[in-house]
């Protein structure tokens, strides 16, 4: 029990830290914040239940007023903003990613591909359904019109899903104990 709580808490702290450290450069010099990568990794590394709980804990602290979202944002205001849908979708994204990665990955060389596909399903498909719905609701427009605007962020998140595949396999090779529990 202690181990599950500390893993969930430290992963919530990792998601926060990934949003606060200076941005990473992707191939081609495109800067991205690594926070949504942290959400995918919560699912792929900790599994569905612990991953979703880590993200929920992270959002709970954001709601309480800690500036833990990328760029030092936080407080109740972020749940009212145009990107609120993405934030609300984070825990479910981690849950689906975790479930799919346990189901698809872990068989030798297919590990990276399976994990990346799981991150793609949870961290992009599921997350964008929430993100676009939230944007449509807050800005009073149709789902299609909101999707047209959000589309530009998809390529960056697809790259993050692929990176999540590589990083997760590296982490699980270094700490094989993590897969249990």
């Amino acid at each position, binding site marked *: 029990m202690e181990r599950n709580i500390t893993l969930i808490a*430290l992963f919530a702290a990792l998601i926060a830290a990934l949003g606060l*450290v200076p941005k990473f*450069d992707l*191939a081609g010099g495109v800067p991205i914040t690594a926070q949504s990568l942290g959400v995918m990794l919560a699912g792929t590394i900790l599994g569905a239940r612990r991953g979703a709980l880590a993200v929920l804990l992270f959002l709970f602290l954001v709601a309480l007023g800690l500036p833990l979202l990328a760029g030092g944002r936080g407080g109740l*205001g972020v749940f009212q903003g145009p990107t609120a849908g993405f934030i609300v979708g984070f825990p479910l994204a981690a849950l689906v990613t975790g479930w799919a990665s346990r189901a698809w990955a872990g068989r030798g060389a297919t590990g990276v591909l399976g994990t990346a596909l799981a991150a793609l399903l949870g961290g992009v498909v599921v997350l964008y359904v929430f993100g676009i719905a939230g944007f449509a609701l807050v800005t009073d427009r149709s789902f299609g019109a909101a999707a047209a605007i959000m589309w530009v962020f998809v390529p960056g998140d697809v790259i993050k899903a692929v990176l999540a595949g590589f990083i997760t396999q590296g982490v699980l090779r270094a700490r094989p104990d993590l897969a249990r529990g």
Partner: protein
Amino acid sequence: MLSLTSERRTPWHAIAAGPKMLVLLAATLGAFWIEGVGPILGFAATVAALYMPGGLVFARAGARMLAPVVPFVVVILAWHWWTGALAQGVVIVLRMVALIALANLVTMTTRLQDMLDRVDAALALLRLPQAWRRRLALAVALVIRFTPVLVQKGAALSQSWRARSRRRPGWRLVLPFALVAIDDAERVAEALRARSGEL
């Protein structure tokens, strides 16, 4: 301390967290019924006026917290101007900005401990087991304690990368960064097991 609560005292600091959250909830639900530029302008002006008792510095801090919304405001207004429905765009933008500002005001005038006390009271009201509440309290404390530690360790990793490479630190750092967090978690779990009873 890692917090968005303002040090500058306002009359709102003295009000308990619970009533402030209820007013925010009511305003959020109510704002979607407001139609027309005039009424929504009145709503936004009221929210702005609520910042005034804190003085100019406080109001400026509140305005800074709205900065991330500016690109969205520009896109929404441009879109509605293009489709010939600028008035509707203004209503949407004002409602969104006013609600964010109101929520930020609650955050800026409520101490973290008061928020946590409210949550604990709500969980007690829901009759959640004492053990669950203790675990949540421990997890919250761990995140607050370890986020600055991990940021520091991340910065150290970044520095060691820069010392060895002329390229900027990239995504490869995320792997050792995750390992640092996982190893810390294992050590803390061991320490908790050694020192405490049942969790």
